[in-house]
């Protein structure tokens, strides 16, 4: 299902979603950067944003959430699972983050399904908006295939006019899921695309494809093979000399999903909450187990672990790249350690 919609009509869809009880989230400009935030008017959504500092991950996997509350009686322990938040409409998600959502869906939906994550996803609608090209010089989405999304969204918006940094007034809205079709049908907005609209969309896609340039000297499919040869590379130790193990790269990553679980008792000590919080494999105690043994005590081994997860192991487990190339890790690193540089250097080592 495809409709041509105006920017005003998209704002009206957001306003209607709010009226019917959804929280509407999208890119909002805060001084020099954009952030995903809940808005109070659809018109506040900045669909011409370059990139958001954080991905929409925190709306599906909050940095801290209560998973159950418990009380210890004299005879029994009672535990009640916590339920999800309000239904969401996230409008303005770039293809890289859609790919990340698709990966999180696969991870939390397989094995023992994660009820908390899935409940939030079930109640959410994701409206994607296509990019004119790389959002800045840090992104390497073209290499990782992150600049093309087939999943992780319900409706894809293709700008029909405007340009980089200039908001489009008209979009081609293509529903990718039943939920997406319902959203467009329910709001009764827009009109069927004319041939001229289809041409404009095609022209946009051709231009965008030309704008995305490769950064790696090889195809990303080769990455697992290159990493296989690099497990004992000196590069890990050399790079770790600059690394703080601060975990910033993990915590801004749209595909990082590791968490830790803590019990937080009330002062009465007879009741409390079980809380899960974001964790990150770069942090000193990430691989510390009961008894105190740490499987990755050296920061070089943690650094290598992250690169192997993103470039090889997640691909092997989930059939999808663990990295979407959004470049947030490189931007967040105050030591200016770059994943692209690491991938490039490893290839040069052979």
């Amino acid at each position, binding site marked *: 299902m495809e409709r041509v919609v105006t920017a005003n009509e998209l704002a009206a869809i957001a306003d209607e979603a709010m009226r019917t009880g959804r929280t509407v989230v999208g890119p909002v400009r805060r001084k020099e950067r954009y952030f995903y935030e809940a808005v109070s008017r659809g018109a506040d959504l900045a669909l011409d944003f370059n990139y958001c500092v954080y991905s929409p991950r925190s709306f599906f996997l909050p940095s801290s959430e209560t998973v159950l509350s418990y009380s210890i009686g004299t005879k029994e322990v009672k535990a009640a699972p916590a339920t999800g938040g309000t239904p969401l409409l996230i409008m303005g998600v770039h293809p890289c983050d859609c790919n990340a959502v698709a990966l999180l869906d696969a991870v939390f939906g397989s094995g023992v399904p994660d009820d908390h994550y899935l409940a939030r996803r079930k109640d959410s609608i994701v409206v994607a908006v296509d990019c004119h090209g790389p959002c800045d010089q840090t992104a390497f989405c073209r290499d990782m295939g992150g600049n093309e999304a087939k999943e992780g969204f319900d409706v894809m918006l293709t700008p029909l006019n405007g340009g980089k940094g200039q908001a489009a007034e008209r979009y081609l809205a293509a529903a990718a899921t039943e939920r997406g079709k319902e959203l467009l049908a329910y709001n009764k907005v827009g009109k069927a695309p004319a041939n001229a609209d289809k041409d404009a969309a095609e022209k946009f896609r051709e231009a965008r494809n030309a704008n995305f340039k490769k950064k790696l000297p090889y195809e990303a499919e080769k990455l697992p093979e290159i990493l296989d040869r690099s497990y004992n590379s000196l590069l890990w130790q050399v790079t770790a*000399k*600059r690394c*703080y193990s601060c975990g*910033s790269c993990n*915590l801004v990553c749209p595909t990082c999903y590791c968490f830790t679980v803590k019990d937080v*008792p009330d*002062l009465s000590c007879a009741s409390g909450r079980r809380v899960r919080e974001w964790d990150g494999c770069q942090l*000193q105690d990430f691989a510390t187990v009961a008894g105190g043994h740490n499987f990755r005590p050296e920061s070089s081994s943690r650094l290598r672990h992250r690169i192997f997860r993103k470039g090889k192991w997640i691909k092997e487990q989930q059939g999808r790249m663990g990295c979407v190339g959004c470049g947030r890790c490189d931007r967040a690193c105050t030591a200016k350690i770059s994943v692209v540089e690491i991938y490039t250097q490893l290839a040069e080592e052979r």
Partner: protein
Amino acid sequence: MVSPAPVSAKPKIAVFSLTGCEGCSLAILELEDVLLDILGKFEVVNFREAMTERSWDIDIGFVDGAVSTPSDVEEVKMFREKSKVLVAIGACACTGGINTLKNYQNEEDYRKYVYGNKWNVFPTIPAQPCSAFVKVDYELPGCPMNKFEFAELAKSVLLGKPFKLPSDPVCVECKKKGNLCLYEKGLVCLGPVTRAGCGAICPTYGAKCEGCRGLVDKPNLQAAAENMVNLYGMKIEDVLADFRMFGAYQKERIP
């Protein structure tokens, strides 16, 4: 990590102060929402900031302030002797805090600056944390300490559960809050090597982290010095001064 010593059914607690502003003692009284619950679980027997009664039968003694005078030395030893569990609270008691800045100045100069012409009647020693003189069971760092961390320690003691400070750096809390990194705004912050637990309160309000909670367990100070000088154009003297603000007494030094 020390497991809590056995304590009586309603543990008796005391709060003492050495050289400092006593802001950490005050932080306990600012635990308004849970203060009554704490008072229901603990018996406060000695607390200069809050009461006139004095008892020396103490299960858990909390100390704020640095050891900075000869009388502080005697007092901290007495607090240790009288308390089954001794907890240092706040930057001064845990790392010496900003008091240690005087250790890098001329003694006569700073004594005259503070006490004027009566300077020689107030004896002084280089400022040091409690742990330089006595065994300290737990430390709750920060300037001031995080009062909620105080409540967490209280719960751990009641449950007989080990208490451990966060090992993550402040960056983790900034990212969890969704802050824009101060480095992106051109500020060089000590967050990457400073122990979390403050909720990244300074960066959240736009001020750089000054490291009041001390360093993480394994800080990469070599990286800190090189990155701050080579990547951010700081002078090495300024880097050292930033680290000295709260960290003058810490064992880990910029190499």
